[in-house]
C-alpha cells in the first residue's frame, strides 16, 4: 500500500478538463442568445413567443422522456434547452405556436430520446424536428413574415426564395444594389427564419465557440469553403458572398454541423463532413426543388457519419498492420 502522498497512483485519464457537457451546452446557449434577441428585434414579439414555446416544449419533452425511460441524465444539462432554441431559430417567425411546440417535442422525443438519449442520437435533434415540420406543414414552414419594423424594409420572400423562383433580376429589383443586399444579409434586416438573418452575430458567436475550444474550425471552414468554391463555378465571383451570407448557412455551419454527437470525431472526418455538407447544400440550392439545403445536407451527412468515422480511424501506433 502506497502511503507517500507524492506518489499517488490513479487510473487513467490523468489529464482532466473542466469543460463538462453542462458547461458546453450553456456556453452555446449564451452565444445564441444575441442571435435570438436579434430575431425578436427584427420580426417582433411573435418570434419571441416561438422561441419561448419551443424551448419550454423541448425541456418538458426531455423531462417526460427521462422520467418514463428512467435515464440517468438530468434535464439541467441544457441539451434539451439548446435543442429547443436551435429549432426555433430555424423556424419562420410567423409559424403557429402549437406547431413550434410539436416540432420541439418531436425533436426531443423521436429525434433524441427514442435513439437512446444524449450521446446516442444519429441525427441532430433540432434539424430532425425541422425536417418533420417541413414535411408536415409545408405551407406554414415557407410563409415568411414581411418585415414591417423599418421604413426601408422589404416585404418579400427570403433572398434565396426570390433567386430560386424569379431569378437574379427580381432579387436586384427588390433589394436594389448588390452591396445593399449584402449589408442587409450581414446585419439581419432581411426575410428568413428567426435565427438565420444576421450573419454577423452568428459569425461572432461561432468564432467565440472556436476560441473557447467548444467546437473546432474543421467543419465550419470546410463547409463554408466548399460552398464558396461551388458558388464561383455556378454564378461567378459576385455570387460567393451572397451564397455565404444568405439562408441558414452560417447558423448551420457553426451551430448545427458542429454538434458533437452527430458529427465525426476525427479531424479528417470532420473535413469530409464539411465538404459533403457544402456539396449537398449547393446541389439543393442550385439544382434542387427547395431554395435552401442546409438542413437536409447536415441530416444526410449525419446519416453517413459512422461510415466517415470508420474510414478515417486513426492508426494505432505500435501494432502490426493488419
Amino acid at each position, binding site marked *: 500500500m502506497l502511503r507517500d502522498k507524492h506518489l499517488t497512483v490513479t487510473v487513467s485519464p490523468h489529464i482532466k478538463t473542466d469543460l463538462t457537457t453542462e458547461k458546453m451546452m450553456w456556453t452555446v446557449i449564451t452565444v445564441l442568445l444575441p442571435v435570438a434577441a436579434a430575431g425578436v428585434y427584427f420580426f417582433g414579439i411573435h418570434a419571441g413567443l416561438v422561441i419561448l414555446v419551443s424551448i419550454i416544449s423541448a425541456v418538458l419533452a426531455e423531462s417526460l422522456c427521462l422520467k418514463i425511460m428512467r435515464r440517468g441524465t438530468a434535464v439541467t444539462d441544457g441539451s434539451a434547452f439548446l435543442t429547443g432554441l436551435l429549432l426555433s431559430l430555424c423556424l419562420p417567425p410567423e409559424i*403557429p405556436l402549437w*406547431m413550434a411546440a*410539436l416540432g420541439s417535442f418531436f425533436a426531443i422525443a423521436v429525434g433524441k430520446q*427514442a435513439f437512446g438519449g444524449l450521446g446516442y442520437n444519429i441525427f441532430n435533434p433540432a434539424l430532425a424536428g425541422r425536417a418533420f415540420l417541413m*414535411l*408536415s*406543414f*409545408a405551407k*406554414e414552414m415557407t410563409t415568411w413574415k414581411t418585415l414591417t419594423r423599418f421604413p426601408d424594409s422589404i416585404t418579400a420572400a427570403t433572398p434565396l426564395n426570390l433567386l430560386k423562383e424569379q431569378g437574379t433580376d427580381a432579387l436586384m429589383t427588390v433589394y436594389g444594389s448588390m452591396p445593399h443586399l449584402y449589408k442587409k444579409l450581414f446585419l439581419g434586416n432581411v426575410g428568413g427564419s428567426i435565427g438565420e438573418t444576421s450573419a454577423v452575430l452568428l459569425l461572432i458567436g461561432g468564432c467565440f465557440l472556436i476560441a473557447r475550444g467548444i467546437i473546432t474550425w474543421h467543419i465550419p471552414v470546410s463547409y463554408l469553403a466548399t460552398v464558396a468554391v461551388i458558388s464561383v463555378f455556378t454564378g461567378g465571383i459576385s455570387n460567393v458572398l451572397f451564397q455565404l451570407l444568405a439562408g441558414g448557412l452560417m447558423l448551420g455551419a457553426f451551430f448545427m454541423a458542429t454538434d458533437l454527437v452527430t458529427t465525426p470525431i476525427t479531424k479528417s472526418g470532420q473535413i469530409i463532413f464539411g465538404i459533403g455538407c457544402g456539396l449537398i447544400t449547393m446541389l439543393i440550392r442550385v439544382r434542387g426543388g427547395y431554395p435552401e439545403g442546409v438542413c437536409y445536407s447536415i441530416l444526410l451527412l449525419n446519416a453517413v457519419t459512422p461510415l466517415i468515422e470508420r474510414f478515417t480511424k486513426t492508426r494505432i501506433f505500435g501494432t502490426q498492420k493488419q
Partner: protein
Amino acid sequence: MKNTRTLIQETTKGIIERNPIFVLCLGLCPVLAVSNLVENAVYMGAAFTFVMFFSNITVSMVRKIIPEKVRIPCYIVIIASFVTVAGLLMQWFIPGVYKKMSLFINLIVVNCIVLGRAEFFASKNNVVRSAADAVGMGIGFTGALFIIAVIREISGFGTFYGIKITPEAFKPITSMILAPGAFLTIGFLIALFNYIKLKKGNISE
C-alpha cells in the same frame, strides 16, 4: 414439441401474444401502404383474413401429400388461388374500393404472414387448429392495421372513416400519411407493446 394449447388459445394467441405486426413484425409492407385510411385498413384486413383462413385450411388438408422439396411453390399456388378469389369477389361487390387497392390485394400472395403461417403452422397441424390459428392471425392483423390507420388518419387527414372530426384550428400533420408517419406509428406501437409485456413480466417462449 407437443402442442398443448386449447383451440381458444390457438385463436387468441394471434391477437396479442403473437400479433403478426407488433410482435412478429411480419407483413409490414402492406401495413405501410394501406394504413393511412381506416377504410383501406378495414378492407385490407378483411381480404387478408379471408385469404389467411382458406389457405391455412387448404395447406393443412394437403400437408401430407405435398413433397418436402416443393412445398413453398405449392403454398404459393394455394395462396394465389384464394387471393384471386378475394380479388374477384371485391371486384363484384365493391369495385370502387378494389380499383384503389387492387395492387395491395394482389400482393397478399407474397405476404409473409400468410406464407409464414402455412410453413410454420398449417403444414404441421390439423385442419381445425389451422383454422383457429388463421382466425386469430386475421383478427390480430386487422386489429393492428385498424389501430395504426386510426392514428394516422386522424392526425394526417383530421378525419375518421372519411368523416371530419378534428376542430378547424387543427392543421393535419401531413407527414403522418406519408411513409415516415407509418414507420413512426408502428415503431411507437411496438415499443408500447413491449413495454406492456415487460410490465406484465410474461415474455412468453
